[in-house]
C-alpha cells in the first residue's frame, strides 16, 4: 500500500471512530454501575448567570 493511501485510510478510520457509538452489553442480572463525575465549567456558568441577571434587571444593575 502506498503512503498516501495509508494516510487516507488512517484519516477515514479516525473519522469513522469519532462518530461511532460504543455499546456495552452486560449481564442483565448484574447491572453495571457507572459513577459519572461531572466537571462544571464555572466561567461558563458565570456567563450564563450574568446574562440571566442582566435580563431580569433589564440592564439596570448597579
Amino acid at each position: 500500500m502506498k503512503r498516501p493511501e495509508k494516510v487516507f485510510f488512517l484519516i477515514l478510520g479516525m473519522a469513522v471512530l469519532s462518530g461511532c457509538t460504543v455499546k456495552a452489553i452486560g449481564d442483565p442480572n448484574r447491572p453495571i454501575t457507572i459513577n459519572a463525575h461531572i466537571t462544571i465549567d464555572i466561567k461558563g456558568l458565570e456567563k450564563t448567570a450574568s446574562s440571566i441577571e442582566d435580563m431580569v434587571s433589564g440592564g439596570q444593575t448597579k
Partner: protein
Amino acid sequence: MKKVLGSFVLAAVMLGAGGMVMAQPGYDIKVMTPQVKSALEARKARFAELKALKSQGVVGENNRGYVEALGGGGNVKDLVNAENANRKEVYQAIVEQNDLGAGSLATVEGVFAGVQRDKAAAGEKVQDPSGRWVTK
C-alpha cells in the same frame, strides 16, 4: 488521488473541529418551559421593588444565591420568599436542562451568589463566602 485525499483531510479536520465545539460546555436555559418563563417574568416584575429594599438595607444577597430579609415586616418576607422560589426554579432548570446532576444545584447557587455580589450596587448588603454580611 491527491485531490481526493485533500478533500478527506479537510472533511476530517472539519469533523474534528465540529466535535470539539459540540463538546464545549455552554450552560443555558435550553427550553423556556412555562414554569421558567413565569419565574423569570415574575422576577422582572418585582425587580424594582426588590432593588429599593436592597438600597435601604432591608434585603441583602446571601452567599447561597438567594435574597434574605434583614429587616422589614411580613410583606418584605413574602417578597423575599416569592423571589427565592422563582430563583430556585431557574437554578433547577439550569441543572436539569444541562444535565449537571442533582448534586450540582449548590454549585449553581454559589455561582449565582457570586454574580449577584458583583452586580450589587454600592450601599447594598451582600454576604461574603465566609458568611459575613458586608455593605458594598
